[in-house]
């Protein structure tokens, strides 16, 4: 346990680099931020680059929480250097020697414990690549009404990448997984500053772990994972929110009992029965709440930008990206009159049911005025974005249709 004295020293050290500047720049001067966030975000968020990254929207320095600015979403795939960064705890490994990395596979659900190096992962198992959206459970928390405490994410705690690696089920089979296994517990090399803080450890149901699409990925968009996206390997759980995509993965445990850790039992939970979701984490459902699982259907308009100005009778293209929990986007509708009337957008290439689906629709405003532009995505199991926020205390699953204003002169 860290001593009080050390803690005081550390607190002072953390401030040693502080400059006597107050960031008083307000919303109007921070066009990289969307509207509707708490005032404090306009006060403190900045565009800054982590090593290996482009300047992203810095919400917090330590642990680092950086989101992708909307104007980086120019295609279905989010570049690695633009991909959002999210950590819970500030004990993040600085330098990782991939040659020394080991993945341990243990637990009472394992017949033959394993320890695998990265080269063994690459050479001994079939390589698989899947396009999948990775979205923080709290993406868009900052728009919650009323606002709720937490990292005040705007639109950019989401991205889509091609994840290449090996199937988790192949690893578990090699380790003689027992049929009595209920959950697979994953841990990464990042951890807390204080020993009293619960380490970030997550579990997934055994059936999700054995799903063909659940991977241990060592590549992202054809390159090694960026350090801040989980180098050298991370769990990829397509369809489910990023809380399960353990970064810097170094330990997997098969458990015949439900995992009792804080980050499953108490955190990342949604009110039971409140959201229209199909997959539940059955061994962890309680009367009042249950773990968040699959993503709800959602979309974002990437062009035109909020407040865009154009001429009457000119044509602009309304473009954006839609995604869901892995059922597949079926339809995206666009309204330019604040939801009064809707027209179906043209969908882009189908890159797989877990990926971003691009959409576009030409827009030729007949006359001057303010136009409220909205997108509404629906998926293959009949789910549609919410008209009204489904409030929950942690601000998860925000898929409210989000209007933006276009000024026509």
């Amino acid at each position: 346990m860290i001593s009080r004295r050390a803690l005081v020293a550390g607190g002072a050290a953390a401030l040693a680099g502080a400059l006597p500047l107050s960031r008083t720049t307000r919303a109007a001067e921070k066009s990289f931020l969307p509207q509707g966030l708490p005032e404090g975000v306009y006060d403190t968020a900045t565009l800054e680059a982590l090593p290996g990254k482009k300047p992203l929207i810095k919400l917090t320095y330590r642990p680092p929480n950086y989101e992708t600015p909307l104007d980086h979403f120019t295609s279905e795939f989010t570049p690695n250097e633009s991909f959002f960064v999210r950590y819970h705890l500030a004990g993040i490994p600085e330098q990782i020697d991939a040659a020394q990395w080991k993945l341990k596979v243990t637990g009472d659900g394992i017949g033959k414990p394993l320890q695998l190096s990265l080269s063994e992962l690459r050479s001994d198992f079939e390589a698989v690549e899947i396009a999948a959206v990775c979205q923080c459970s709290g993406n868009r928390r900052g728009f919650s009404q009323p606002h709720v405490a937490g990292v005040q994410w705007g639109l950019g705690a989401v991205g889509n990448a091609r994840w290449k690696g090996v199937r988790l089920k192949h690893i578990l089979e090699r380790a003689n997984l027992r049929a009595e296994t209920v959950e697979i517990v994953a841990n990464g090399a990042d951890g807390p500053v204080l020993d009293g803080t619960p380490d970030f450890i997550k579990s997934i149901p055994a059936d999700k772990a054995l799903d063909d699409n659940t991977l241990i990925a060592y590549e992202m968009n054809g390159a090694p994972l960026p350090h801040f996206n989980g180098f050298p390997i991370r769990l990829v759980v397509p369809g489910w929110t990023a809380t399960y995509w353990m970064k810097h993965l170094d330990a997997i445990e098969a458990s015949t009992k439900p995992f009792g850790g804080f980050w499953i039992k108490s955190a990342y939970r949604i009110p039971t029965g409140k959201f229209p979701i199909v997959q539940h984490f059955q061994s962890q459902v309680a009367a009042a709440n249950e773990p968040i699982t699959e993503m709800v259907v959602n979309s974002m308009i990437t062009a035109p930008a909020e407040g865009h100005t154009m001429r009457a009778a000119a044509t602009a293209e309304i473009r954006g990206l839609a995604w869901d929990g892995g059922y597949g986007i079926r339809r995206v509708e666009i309204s330019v009159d604040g939801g009064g009337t809707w027209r179906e957008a043209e969908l882009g290439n189908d890159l797989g049911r877990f990926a971003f689906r691009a959409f576009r629709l030409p827009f030729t405003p007949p006359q001057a005025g303010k136009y409220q532009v909205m997108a509404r995505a629906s998926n293959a199991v009949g789910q549609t974005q919410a008209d009204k926020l489904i409030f929950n205390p942690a601000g998860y699953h925000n898929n409210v249709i989000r209007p933006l204003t276009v000024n026509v002169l």
Partner: protein
Amino acid sequence: MRHIVTSAALLLFAANAWAQANVVLKAGVGRETVETYCAACHSLDYARQNAPFLSRQGWESEVTKMIKVFGAPIEPADAKVIVDYLTANYGGG
């Protein structure tokens, strides 16, 4: 898994460029207490961005969570100073 258990390691962390917590809080009674305890584990933009919508009760609940759930070694008297400061400077909800 890799716990930072010594102040030397903590200093090393704080010295990393990407972890530079260049966040200044408003001057006010209790600011140093907030800086000492809160910044040990996280940068202070966590506080600044969660404003001004939290009420005193909201800030109390955050500070209590840090002590009870995340194991922050903060005595009740210091916890009160922290809640008072955050409510006065970053509260209002």
